[in-house]
């Protein structure tokens, strides 16, 4: 390449572009940092005016998130004596004592079980289907692929009523198995389309060589194609996980307690006086951090994942 190019932006242009983008990035980041920061504030600091940038960090929000608190009358409080535990000490203001565990841990576990369960199922079904679509002459291939994609266009509420009825009669409502099946179906289109793109990129010659060496189709699939597709499978899995992790509409409409995930729970965290913002922020932080880490890891495949492989970088 020559040192001079008409398409290479000048130094000044780069500088100007850089500054504008950084300003936008900082504006974007501000609400996120505010969530994380609020999680470490005391309830008074969280609702201080003007909003506090510098504050004394505390884990009270996290304690409030994982526990249930009750207000106790003054005399009873005195009878209880000194707070026994450090976390009780943290919330022993305004006559509040810890009475037990909140349901956050349980809901979070549900998110993990349903998220991972549906991801494993989705990847298993998706890889098989994607391989078949990529390598074989499947009758009505284009129609089937479009059909799979079109299932994504349906508003969740539009099918929620019959799914609600169906799950009720099958005994699947408010169960982990039911939600895993549902989220698998929701994410299957993404999984098939994305994996098909990844498998299309693996040269077919590898399998042909394996077949000539005496492998069966099946052996060629799992000994040759699968190891080659492993990066694609991993990033598809993370996308399925993130979608299931963040899903709210089905979770709030079809579950009531047993299998409810964290997104419907976090907004319902109420303190002694209205919404307990530090606890909400603590819950949001715990819930958002894995996704943020995955986003950073996924940088390279991000575009593909969010556009179902329709656009490649």
């Amino acid at each position, binding site marked *: 390449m020559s040192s001079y190019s008409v398409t290479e932006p000048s130094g000044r242009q780069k500088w100007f572009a850089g500054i504008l983008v950084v300003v936008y990035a900082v504006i974007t980041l501000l609400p996120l940092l505010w969530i994380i920061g609020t999680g470490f504030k005391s309830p008074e600091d969280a609702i201080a005016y003007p909003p506090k940038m510098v504050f004394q960090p505390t884990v009270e929000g996290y304690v409030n998130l994982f526990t249930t608190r009750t207000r106790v009358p003054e005399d009873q409080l005195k009878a209880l004596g000194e707070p026994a535990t450090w976390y009780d000490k943290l919330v022993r203001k305004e006559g509040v004592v810890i009475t037990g565990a909140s349901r956050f841990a349980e809901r979070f576990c549900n998110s993990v079980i349903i998220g991972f369960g549906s991801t494993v199922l989705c990847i298993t079904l998706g890889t098989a289907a994607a391989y078949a679509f990529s390598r074989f002459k499947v009758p009505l291939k284009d129609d089937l692929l479009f059909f799979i994609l079109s299932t994504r266009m349906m508003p969740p*509420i539009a099918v929620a009523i019959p799914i609600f009825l169906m799950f009720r009669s099958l005994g699947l409502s408010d169960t982990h198995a039911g939600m895993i099946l549902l989220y698998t179906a929701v994410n299957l289109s993404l999984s098939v389309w994305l994996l098909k793109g990844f498998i299309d990129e693996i040269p077919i010659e590898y399998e042909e060589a394996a077949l000539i060496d005496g492998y069966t189709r099946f052996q060629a699939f799992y000994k040759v194609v699968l190891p080659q597709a492993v990066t694609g499978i991993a990033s598809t899995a993370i996308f399925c996980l993130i979608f299931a992790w*963040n899903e709210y509409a089905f979770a709030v409409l079809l579950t009531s307690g047993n299998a409810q995930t964290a997104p419907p729970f976090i907004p319902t965290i109420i303190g002694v006086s209205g919404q307990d913002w530090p606890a909400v922020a603590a819950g949001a932080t715990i819930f958002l951090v894995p996704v*943020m880490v995955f986003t950073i890891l996924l940088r390279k495949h991000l575009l593909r994942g969010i556009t179902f492989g329709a656009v490649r970088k």
Partner: protein
Amino acid sequence: MLHSPIDRVASATPPAIAARIRGLSDRAIAWLFVAPSIVLLLAINIFPLIWTIRLSFTNFRVNRPNAPIEFVGLRNYINILSDSDIWQSMQATAHFLIWTIVLQVLIGFSLAYLINKKFRGNDLWTTIIVLPMMLSPAVVGNFWTFLYQPQIGLFNYVVGFLTGNDPSSFSMIASTSLAPWAIVIVDTWMWTPFVMLICLAGLRSIPNSIYEAAECDRASKWRQFWTITIPLVLPFLMLAVLFRGIENFKMFDLVVQLTGGGPGSITELTSVNLKRAAFEQWRTGYASAYAVILFVTVFGLASIYVKALNKVKQR
């Protein structure tokens, strides 16, 4: 009869390999691999959809399972199309769609254009900008109600600080004139990066040689932008609009947590409205008809749009 050695080899080889490729035929494997996915999608997507269509012609109510189910023909559809509340939520949805798409395309494209200047560290900043769209809309929406609090909320404070207004004098989510903008702002914050990423892919797909040729022809930068950059990015941009349009038409989680459809029903988008009919008023038949209308609308609009998109692509 085969006599020459070459003929014998030629005829012997294929069966030998075929015999070693044991097990299922390709056709059987293809079916075996595709079938589970199709069956699951039929069971959890198509079957419910057909059920919804069937329910839409009845007066069934989920909370009254023992009441006789009557076939009411098109009455649900007629009721919906003559209901002013529903037209109002259609209008709210249209307003939301138009503004989010306009803002996200303008800001997203500008950002992509700037990032394409390849300044130092642009990868890091791009990753930061992309973060919001990976987060849970419900959780984020809930937290934004905090940022929108008059006085104590960060958003109000910053806006108050910048404009010189008293931050406690306005509430984004409690005022009928500001609430629609409150959801537009959060949606734009979350999804502009999506448009940006697609535009960036579009910009990077334009070969430098086209600009070099234009430079030789002494085309101005402005002219290059309008005759090269824009037309070549347009198909990407249209794809981004399609994805955003479909997603925002279904918009539910963010709005429910942010404004809950209020104040009054000013931000009650169609999904929220539908949820109220189906899961609060339990008018199942009526809600099913509503769902069918929404589905036909989104499917119809998307199909027309995809046709236009394909035309642009072929140009």
